[in-house]
């Protein structure tokens, strides 16, 4: 029973947050909806035994990334009301067609045999705890090369962001 509640409550909050992200008019509300989504996802990760990833999710996503989003929202200001006029002909028709297809595939697969995806592998007997020690022992042995590449990627991204957002006033005056 507790297991069911631990799934159902975060799952409904997750969908609520996602709908707020899509349909709220004020960008700050959208950002708060995203925070709700990410937090309930972290709870779901804990129920899936991935405790360390849940903590990183809270720190990186709900902390750092959302702060960045809110900074940009404040910088840009709450925008003028969005144009809802369609620019491409038949855009709305295409969107609704694709969506109906996607949703019907999801519903069809889920409800077939009562929410059974016929997964290829049976549920494993090992119950894995995603503690920092276990993750680190995998990350720094078999995944050490991707880990190093990721650090280069982060430096490149930071440099790119500075180059994009910084105004080079003096050089444009000289040229």
């Amino acid at each position, binding site marked *: 029973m507790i297991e*069911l509640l631990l799934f159902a409550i975060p799952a409904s909050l*997750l969908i609520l947050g*996602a709908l707020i992200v899509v349909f709220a008019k004020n960008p700050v509300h959208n950002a708060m909806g*995203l925070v709700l989504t990410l937090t309930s996802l972290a709870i779901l990760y804990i129920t899936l035994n*991935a405790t360390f990833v849940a903590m990183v999710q809270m720190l990186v996503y709900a902390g750092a990334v959302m702060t960045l989003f809110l900074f940009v929202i404040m910088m*840009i200001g709450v925008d003028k009301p969005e144009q809802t006029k369609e620019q491409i002909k038949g855009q709305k028709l295409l969107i609704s067609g*694709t969506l109906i297809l996607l949703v019907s595939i999801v519903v069809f697969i*889920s409800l077939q045999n009562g929410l059974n995806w016929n997964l290829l592998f049976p549920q494993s007997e090992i119950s894995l705890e995603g503690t920092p020690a276990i993750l680190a022992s995998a990350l720094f042995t078999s995944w050490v090369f991707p880990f190093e590449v990721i650090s280069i990627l982060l430096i490149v991204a930071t440099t790119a*962001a500075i180059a994009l957002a910084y105004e080079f006033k003096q050089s444009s005056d000289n040229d």
Partner: protein
Amino acid sequence: MIEVTSDWYLTLSAILFSIGFLGMMVRKNALIMFMCIELMLNAVNLTFITASKHLGSVDGQIAVFFVLVVAAAEVVVGLAIIVSIFKKQESASVDMLSSSKG
């Protein structure tokens, strides 16, 4: 007694991805579109974690770790682009971005 299985999590992840896709298609504010990309990335992360639990392997969680870092880098660069676009045209709507074609 209903048991919560991996299938439930996979269904939830598919729903989350569909909502993110809907937002990506419907909204025109570049910032909101970015948030919808985050939703889709998180849906995939949930799939990875579910697979990690289901298979009893730690590799899914490592993959989520990398997706998280790539998403953070992507947000940093994307928001910088949005800010520099906003400086030029005073709006974050993607409809007026036709000026950026080559």
